[in-house]
């Protein structure tokens, strides 16, 4: 007989941590982005994706709203807006 033992890879994606946001979330302006990739690298939630200039965006299902992406962007192309803001 066996009990709980193994966990399947990547199963944490079932947990939509975007529900944690209460204060703010990032807005990707996609205007002056130079595709330096820093926002993608720094995000603790691995929820930023993008390839070419002005394509970077965030998966709000998982974003906890920490704001480090906005802090690291050298072009200030990411800003933090209120969570309740329409857009």
């Amino acid at each position: 007989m066996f009990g709980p033992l193994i966990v399947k890879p990547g199963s944490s994606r079932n947990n939509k941590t975007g529900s944690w946001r209460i204060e703010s979330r990032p807005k990707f302006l996609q205007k002056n982005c130079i595709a330096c990739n820093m926002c993608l690298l720094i995000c603790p939630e691995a929820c930023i994706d993008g390839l070419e200039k002005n394509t970077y965006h965030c998966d709000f299902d998982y974003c906890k709203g920490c704001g480090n992406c906005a802090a690291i962007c050298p072009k200030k192309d990411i800003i933090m807006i209120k969570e309740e803001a329409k857009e």
Partner: protein
Amino acid sequence: MSKHLFTSGHTACSGCGQAMAARLVIDAAGPNTIVANSTGCLEVFSTKYPESAWEIPWVHSLFENSAAVASGIEAALIYLGKKDNINVIAQGGDGGSADIGLQAISGMLERGHDILYVCYDNEAYMNTGVQRSGLTPLETNTTTSPVGNNSSGNWRPKKPMPEIALAHGIPYVAIASVAFPQDLQRKVKKALSIKGPKYLQIHVPCPLGWRHEPSLTYQVAKLAVETGLYPLIEYENGVLSSRRQIKPLPVEEYLKPQGRFKHILNNPELLKKFQEVADNNIKKYNLKLENQAD
């Protein structure tokens, strides 16, 4: 969607430095990697049954033995003739590495296993509530080195873990920071290209334990490097092969955003001792950028 090997949905605090670093490390290592992880924040927030954020084979045993478990994995892979194609990483926090894990790490380094050990240094036992560890800096306020009438915080300097690793005569020792993610990943790739035991220590701010805003993780980590408090260096075969040079900022800049250093800012004597740590690093590793253009 970029395929990350440490994915979303984990329950780390918002702005967690260790979550940033853990993902950078495993993404740089690639899918042919097996990880042995110590007990700690990373293990707890990334593998709460039945959810795991890891996309690679990953094992957690106990607090102090990830280096020993990794040694067993490496030995098994050698026996199976598979070691050449598979990276083995052992990782843990500062407490799990420099304190309770020191014996197992030392043994692993001394035996010469082909393993990369990664120490995520957030400078205290964070998962159990911010208690002081061997890597807690001098004068830091933690729950077991609290500031009070008779104490100005932790009364011992950081244990020089990278130097201890270096003293084992291993081919690669490096210090990295979450504030310099590309440098961090370069160091991981460099380490994994070398056969033998490797040690990488990564500075990872903890918003909760360091008492700073979650949005400041990147900036606080950057300030640690820019003040000279956390030198980014590489040693290859015992020789210093790289250092990130800086235009040194005064340590106050680093202390200001963090509640754990609040008591130092208004105390010139404590501040002086704190600055000394930075100054000693700058001197030792020759960190000051020459011919600074302003």
